[in-house]
């Protein structure tokens, strides 16, 4: 797939997106309508082959299937918690596929679709939700940083990483993911400031899924979030977050903008959190069912499927093969989680420091001695039973 990143792409956000808040609803960059109709946008063009579209479709379906499996594994007690990405597949797959392998992603706790695009094994994501680790993958292996639970923090890390890229004279870029709720954090404003002042090659990708647990976006802002960028001196764009093609095109443009030394971009992917905040949450306490129903009509996967089928680029054999593959993935995830070993308790003392620390060593020894006193007591007990 190719994206026309020079001819059609603006160097600043399109005027339509920079209007005042009261100039009616802001324009949403869209390339694929909810009905699955391919439309053009004057500023963001995208050329795709049927093969690429099928590959995108496969990503969306597999990611959703993985997510559903994780939710049910939580219900079965195999995971302690799960933060579902349901409804946000297009925002994540679109932006995730826009990155080069050398581009770096800094996720929140919900970017399972981005992880997928970066080639992170989905099973790796489940460790922290099962409670066997706090992350557990090597971020540098796939250029996908650890999940960050403290909202907003990672936007600064992403900015600093991007500042390093500039110092290295490299042309990589970074995406900092965050939510509508996190946009209120001081860290996010500080990240905007640093990125702008240093023209850091970072794209701020805000998934506005309309909710921060129980708080609607109106509790965080009076202007559309993408408009925040202009105050910091860089472009902001609102994209249809349920349109994978628009997310891909806009993110590609933004990454190019960033990596060519033109500074940061804020993308607001307008989407919806179709599920609960996490498996601990009960959204019926704070939002109405009609809202969910109206967003169902904008489903990111259905529209691409409709497009593929209408164009004759996906037959039932293809759709079935993706379905079968997704079931296979779910099975692998299920089995992988169920057999995921608990860490040894003494691992508590591992990796606390890179260079070691006397107190950690002392406490590890104390712990091991204490733990083995139980083992020997148990052994004595069994010996006793043998008598």
């Amino acid at each position, binding site marked *: 797939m190719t994206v026309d990143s020079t001819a059609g792409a603006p160097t600043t956000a399109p005027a339509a997106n920079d209007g005042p808040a009261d100039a009616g609803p802001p324009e949403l960059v869209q390339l694929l309508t909810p009905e699955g109709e391919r439309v053009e946008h004057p500023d963001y063009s995208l050329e795709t082959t049927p093969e690429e579209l099928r590959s995108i479709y496969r990503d969306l379906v597999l990611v959703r299937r993985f997510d559903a499996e994780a939710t049910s594994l939580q219900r079965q007690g195999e995971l*302690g*918690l799960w933060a579902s990405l349901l409804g946000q597949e297009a925002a994540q797959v679109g932006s995730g596929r826009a990155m080069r392998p050398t581009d770096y992603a800094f996720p929140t706790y919900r970017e399972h679709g981005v992880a997928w695009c970066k080639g992170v094994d989905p099973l790796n994501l489940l*460790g*922290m*939700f*099962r*409670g*066997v*680790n*706090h992350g557990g993958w090597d971020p540098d292996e796939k250029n996908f940083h650890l999940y960050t*639970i*403290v*909202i*907003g923090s990672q936007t600064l890390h992403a900015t600093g990483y991007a500042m390093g890229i500039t110092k290295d004279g490299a042309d990589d870029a970074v995406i900092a993911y965050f939510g509508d*709720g*996190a946009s*209120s*954090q*001081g*860290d996010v404003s500080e990240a905007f400031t640093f990125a702008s002042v240093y023209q850091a090659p970072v794209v701020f990708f805000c998934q506005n899924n309309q909710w*921060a*647990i*129980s*708080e609607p976006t109106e*509790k*965080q802002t009076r202007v559309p979030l993408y408009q925040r960028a202009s105050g910091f001196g860089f472009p902001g764009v609102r994209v249809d977050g349920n349109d994978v093609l628009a997310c891909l095109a806009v993110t590609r443009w933004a990454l190019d903008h960033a990596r060519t030394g033109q500074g940061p971009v804020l993308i607001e992917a307008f989407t919806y959190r179709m599920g609960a905040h996490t498996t*601990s*949450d009960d959204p019926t*306490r*704070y939002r109405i069912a009609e809202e969910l129903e109206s967003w169902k009509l904008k489903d990111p996967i259905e529209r691409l499927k409709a497009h593929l089928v209408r164009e004759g680029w996906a037959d039932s054999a293809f759709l079935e093969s993706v379905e079968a593959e997704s079931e296979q993935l779910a099975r692998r995830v299920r089995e992988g989680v169920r057999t995921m070993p*608990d*860490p*040894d*308790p003494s*691992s*508590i*003392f591992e990796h*606390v420091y890179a260079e070691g*620390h006397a*107190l*950690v060593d002392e*406490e590890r020894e104390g*712990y091991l001695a*204490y*733990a083995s006193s*139980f083992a020997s007591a148990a052994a004595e007990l069994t010996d006793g039973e043998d008598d």
Partner: protein
Amino acid sequence: MAVETGTKKSWTMVQALNEALRRSLDENPKTLVMGEDVGRLGGVFRVTDGLHKDFGEERVIDTPLAESGIVGTAIGLALRGYRPVVEIQFDGFVYPAFDQIVTQLAKMHARALGHIKLPVTIRIPFAGGIGAVEHHSESHEAYFAHTAGLKVVAPSNPADAHWMLRQAIASDDPVIFLEPKRRYWDKGQLDPNGAPELELHRARVARTGTDLTLIAYGPMVKVCLEAAEAAAEDGLKLEVVDLRSLSPVDFDTLEQSVRRTGRAVVVHEAPVFLGMGAELAARITERCFYSLEAPVLRVGGYFAPYPPSRVEDAFLPDLDRVLDAVDRAMAF
């Protein structure tokens, strides 16, 4: 909801806290509740359940998601005569507000030579044991207790939670109110029309004994009471002091207890190194040196990040680790 037994009823800690907030809002129109998801949702633990409906969003405020902003604006509201009760959603999320708490909230009264008061209460569900993901199980009491200008309390049961919260809100000083989240659903007797048994900063002897004093607060009081029960079967009489207040500490109650028993073990979830136990051990040693039969021992978390939930049981002090320390103290 609450089950009646005489004038007292059985309440969970969540219900007892909710009732304390309700009464504080009722009694003083200047009282405000603010935080993330405290409105319609009623807080992620439902401590503020129903308050938004009954007192309106002018007084029960869903704030933007910014802890520094929440505490910073609570300070401003207090300067304007309000009594904000702030909820920090989980222990690990108070750090963005740490600057506002430690450099501003704690010091402003002194800087203004006493002319202004900062009656801000900061409620924080703290400590572990609920199988949560990272940043949801921290015991950071020592940071706050180490800061002059803040008062720090941690109830262990529903009745204390209720009365101590009302007392904290009524206090003219900033109070860090640490709620042991794993005890949220434990039940206890309470009559909210009655009166508190103790002043906010007094400790309570939760169980009397003669052989050794177990000192704990918040979530570990229950563990210590269970340990005392288990030790009793072996003929050991352990006294349990529920500290309740971590700043100021009721050293008089501690001293009286340890002078009688001659031995003390401090138990908390926070890492032992420079935790509350360090201060308590030093003070007890100073005050009770000639009564002590053994050094004051400490049981706590390790000098490591709070671990993933599947191994948190190894990190958290439990009955066995408390009794192990008791054995060591008795063997001196």
